[in-house]
């Protein structure tokens, strides 16, 4: 930057004007400054906390770390989290594909209403999402007396946690697939039908392969959210140790008890999940961007 200024002053007619690499490129100094700010910001707000989790988790050695993870309540929390995800994710996968299929490939009344409803969980605070279920299924709630009469417990039990998790992770798959399927249109399905394929066969052999990477991507995000959800689950769980505590809730309880090592050890599981999700997500985005999102086609 500065040498160009000097040159311009001394021998303006001799120095050839160097064209910028691109008209939208900033000067080098500005570029480095922006990059540096971004890196510092990332380090401070993302990398440092992540490191803290790991450092704190191992601060009393590997033995304490292992003990925190194998303690019965932690194992129960892990099992519950996996169970909830194992129910909520497949449910939302099926629902998401069906909803996206219906919205993208057919015209019907109330379509816009359905799209808005699918978006609802994203715009509602998770705590409110949890409260909704307490108000409906709780003892003082709408269906509470009936449920008590029939000895069915939903709130402060596993069903409530599953329902809250499904609600919160509801939009992930459908939101991802609707624009993708809309862009792909119905041409290939029509071709399959003219070739004699049944609708079912066409779905499995044409529609599904066309959305597979987008579907995988959205299930990945859905799963990460299902396992990490705190707010909504916290409201409906009741925090019964060994019974209705998921990993995020277990982390909070341990932390509130000043059991930092155990708390961070369990939290490192969630951090690990986040990292694995991030890596797979990046690989998918890099390799299959065109097949994941609509409008990302390069040819």
């Amino acid at each position, binding site marked *: 930057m500065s040498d160009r200024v000097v040159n311009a002053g001394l021998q303006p007619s001799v120095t050839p004007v160097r064209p910028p690499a691109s008209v939208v490129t900033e000067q080098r100094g500005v570029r480095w400054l922006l990059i540096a700010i971004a890196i510092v910001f990332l380090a401070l707000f993302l990398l440092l906390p992540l490191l803290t989790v790991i450092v704190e988790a191992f601060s009393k050695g590997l033995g304490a770390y292992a003990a925190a993870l194998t303690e019965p309540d932690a194992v129960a929390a892990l099992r519950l989290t996996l169970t909830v995800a194992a129910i909520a994710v497949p449910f939302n996968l099926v629902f998401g594909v069906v909803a996206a299929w219906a919205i993208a490939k057919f015209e019907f009344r109330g379509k816009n209403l359905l799209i808005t409803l699918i978006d609802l969980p994203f715009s509602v605070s998770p705590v409110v999402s949890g409260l909704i279920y307490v108000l409906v299924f709780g003892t003082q709630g709408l269906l509470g007396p009936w449920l008590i009469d029939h000895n069915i417990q939903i709130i402060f039990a596993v069903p409530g946690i599953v329902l809250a998790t499904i609600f919160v992770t509801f939009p992930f798959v459908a939101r991802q697939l609707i624009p993708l399927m809309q862009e792909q249109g119905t*041409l*290939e399905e*029509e*071709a*399959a*039908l*003219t*070739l*004699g*394929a*049944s609708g079912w*066969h066409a779905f499995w*052999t*044409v529609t599904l*392969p*066309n959305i597979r990477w987008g579907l995988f991507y959205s299930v990945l995000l859905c799963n990460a959210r299902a396992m990490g959800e705190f707010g909504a689950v916290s409201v409906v769980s009741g925090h019964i140790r060994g019974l209705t505590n998921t990993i995020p809730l277990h982390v909070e309880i341990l932390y509130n008890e000043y059991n930092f090592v155990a708390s961070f050890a369990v939290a490192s599981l969630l951090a690990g999940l986040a990292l694995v999700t991030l890596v797979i997500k990046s690989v998918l985005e890099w390799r299959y961007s065109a097949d994941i999102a609509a409008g990302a086609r390069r*040819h």
Partner: protein
Amino acid sequence: MHAATDRIGASTAIQVADVSKTFDTAAVLHQLSLDVQAGELLALLGPSGSGKTTLLRIIAGLDHPDSGRIIFGGEDATGLPVQQRAVGFVFQHYALFKHLTVADNIAYGLNARERKRRPPKAEIKNRVGNLLDLVKLSGFASRYPSQLSGGQRQRVALARALAVEPRVLLLDEPFGALDAQVRKDLRRWLREIHDRTGQTTIFVTHDQDEALELSDRVAVLDKGRLQQVGTPDEVQEQPVSPTVLKFLGDAVEVSAVARDGGVEVNGRATPVQAPANSGRDLKLYVRPWQIRLTRPDDAHFVAIVQSSYRTQGRQRIEVEGPDRKPFVVESPDSVRFSVGEPVGLEIIGGYPFDAALR
């Protein structure tokens, strides 16, 4: 040409009977009836919005008519779902299965059959091989659609449609997305394949040259109505309406009168016969090659030269007629005309219609 011009004796493969179709509020097809002969290559020709693609999709079962019937070989197929109609459909934008190889694309229809009716693996492989030979893509079996050119993709799409041995092959603007040279080659090649297989074929096009070059018969559609069906010669020599005539090529519209069985323009006789049962006032439609340059004294009318250029041994002169509409006159003459020069034009042919007719 290929299919019988006389309708007697030729068996009807597909009958479209009084088919109407309305999308939202716009009518796309008005009580349209059309017979397709077995083994013929029929072109559905019309401008965009004429309903030709809708008609093709209704025949395929991809759309359903509001009223009317589709009859396949004497059997009512109106309610038959698309899977059971045994049609081969070729889309303008290929619609190949992106995630399948060329061979798997072609085999798709056979593999989709229920187990009882599915041919054994070896036979499928064999048939795919034959079809690849037919479409001249023998070395391409394990390629993916994205690795093929547009023309190659469309050939795969055709092979895929032929693999299920359809009763009728339906092509929707099959060459529309291809560039001129490829389009020309594919046309000739489609004609060859048709002659070899004798497959009843209907194809949709808005390109007059394509329809006239390729087909046994042309069905001209306009605004959802069938205007005329006939051999390329018939529709060109005896167009039933100005609409058909104008759609089949450039024509100059000239006011004329019928006198003693002949047609007069500006009080001067032409070699054109007046149509039977017409009124006195006529419109005469003249093709560029039915106008000859002449001395202004002998001319039917005088026009002003706007521009001229030579191409392929002929001279094309754009002139502006008395109604101030520009049109093109062809001339083999090597005499060049300068812009603004008045030229005399003599009519040596044309198609007269009653002036009341549109």
